[in-house]
């Protein structure tokens, strides 16, 4: 972990060519009919940063990623990649992207697919090298229909890697991987980031963001609602949800308890999201001795999301 952070900061010091941000986004908007998929985003990601993009489904992550890649035209605003338009960056092989699900051909082998993409780029890395880095050197001749979910993900990773890009965009890279494969995947990612390259990944796994990103961006309803460091995420991972039955408690009374991030009161049922459940529980029992059926559980991503948002709003 420390090693990752160290290499990332070295990368950041190495900084970008011509001093431009790896990704610079200003006033970005995109709507589909009445739905505002992306509703005004401003963001700058420095070269060498490893950024996790979190948010519930429908938060606008994929639309934002599409605009960063130049696959979708923004309604308003601008995206630049190392100072260039996304399409230009793509043409130069500056961006590699690992798309969500699909993106593999049923009638081709692993080696053929990676080879095809390599042959389209101007300065690709050798196909063997890309396969080795993705940990699938032994699958060159395998048809994609005969790959496991985790293996497919690694083929997508090899496809993204083969142009030898400076910026890598990963849309839920470890979905369908088991714990061991996920570990290996991130180890190979460290090889990539150690050279000072930039990575942006969308994920549902909070612990991945915690462990591998040095910056975390939360999106909700097309907006960035939180943009914080790993330290803030780690604080949030300590958060817990506290369920209890407290007859007669009011919302404002509960909110006044220490370390409370969010409260939901229905009749006598109270749900509290707390950044320090011990502190909250002690205060709660002192204030409401009649509280019963108390349960404490780890936070889900959605609840964590709320905790982080409210923490940042308060600070």
């Amino acid at each position, binding site marked *: 972990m420390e090693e990752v952070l160290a290499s990332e900061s070295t990368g950041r010091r190495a900084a970008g060519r011509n001093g431009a941000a790896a990704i610079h986004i200003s006033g970005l908007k995109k709507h589909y009919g009445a739905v505002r998929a992306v509703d005004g985003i401003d963001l700058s990601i420095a070269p060498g940063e490893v950024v996790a993009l979190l948010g519930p489904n429908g938060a606008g992550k994929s639309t934002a990623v*599409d605009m960063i890649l130049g696959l979708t035209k923004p309604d308003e605003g601008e995206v630049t990649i190392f100072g260039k338009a996304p399409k230009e960056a793509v*043409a130069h092989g500056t961006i590699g992207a690992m798309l969500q699900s699909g993106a593999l051909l049923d009638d081709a082998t692993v080696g053929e697919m990676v*080879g095809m993409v390599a042959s389209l780029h101007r300065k690709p890395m050798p196909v063997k090298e890309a396969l080795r880095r993705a940990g699938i050197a032994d699958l060159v001749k395998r048809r994609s229909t005969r790959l496991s979910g985790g293996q497919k993900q690694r083929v997508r990773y090899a496809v993204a890697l083969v142009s030898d890009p400076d910026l890598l965009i990963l849309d839920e890279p470890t979905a369908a991987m088991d714990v061991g494969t996920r570990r290996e995947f991130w180890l190979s990612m460290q090889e990539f980031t150690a050279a000072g390259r930039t990575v942006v990944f969308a994920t549902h796994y909070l612990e991945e963001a915690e462990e591998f990103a040095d910056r975390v961006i939360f999106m909700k309803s097309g907006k960035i609602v939180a943009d914080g460091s790993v330290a803030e995420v780690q604080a949030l991972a300590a958060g817990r949800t506290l369920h209890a039955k407290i007859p007669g408690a009011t919302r404002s009374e509960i909110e006044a308890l220490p370390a409370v991030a969010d409260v939901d009161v229905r009749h006598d049922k109270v749900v509290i999201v707390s950044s320090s459940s011990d502190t909250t529980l002690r205060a709660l029992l002192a204030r409401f001795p009649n509280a019963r059926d108390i349960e404490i559980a780890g936070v889900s991503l959605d609840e964590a999301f709320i905790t982080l948002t409210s923490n940042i709003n308060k600070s």
Partner: protein
Amino acid sequence: MNLGYLGLEIRRALRAPGTLLFTIGFPAMFYLLEMMLFKDVAGAGAGGAGTAAADYPVTIMVGLCAWGVMTAGLLIGTRVVHERTAGWQRQLRLTPLSGGGFLIGKVTVGMAVALPTAIVVPVVAVLVENVQLTPVGWLHATLFVWLGSLPFAIMGLLIGQLSNKDNVQNFVIVGMLLLAMFGGLFMPLDMLPPWWNDLAQFVPSYWLAEIGRVGVLPNYGTIVTPALVLLGWSVVLAAGVVWRYQRDSART
């Protein structure tokens, strides 16, 4: 783009089970079948050399050659739909491959797959019906007809970009049959009513067969008109393909 990319695309096209059946199997089989049907007409020949009936072994060969190369082009549609559904086209758009490069690549592959038709059907015609032509005649009936498949390869590509997994087969098969029937590829045109011949002028496949006919029939006109008509179709359809590629980011 380079040869490695094209080679791989051609390998994939040949792997698809329908490809060889439609481009080689059916045209050759239909030729044998039609010769059995029209043999008597040709033989009893409302009279020997110089009549349309006497030319059936040649004109039907040209028609079925045209049908095969056209079908090879239209079949691109099915493959493109699969690539789009799989999200592969999104992946390709993240490479330096431009809309024009994409078009050229797909069309080259479609035409490469069509090449065997333009060889196999004439070979069958020579072996079975002892068809004899001048070198110029053979050039028209094989190479030029094959080159004439260009607009159909582009049409196949456009079908692939505009249809989806559920309806692409219908578009390809129905399109192929309509073009074959109204272009007069299956039946000798002189067996069909005059209005059919008039209508055929508006169908690009008619002009594809014309490319062959101008080479194999005496005093039949020049290659200029059919070539220009097919080129015109190619330009319009190609513009549609490039336009569509640039806008198509659909996640399916």
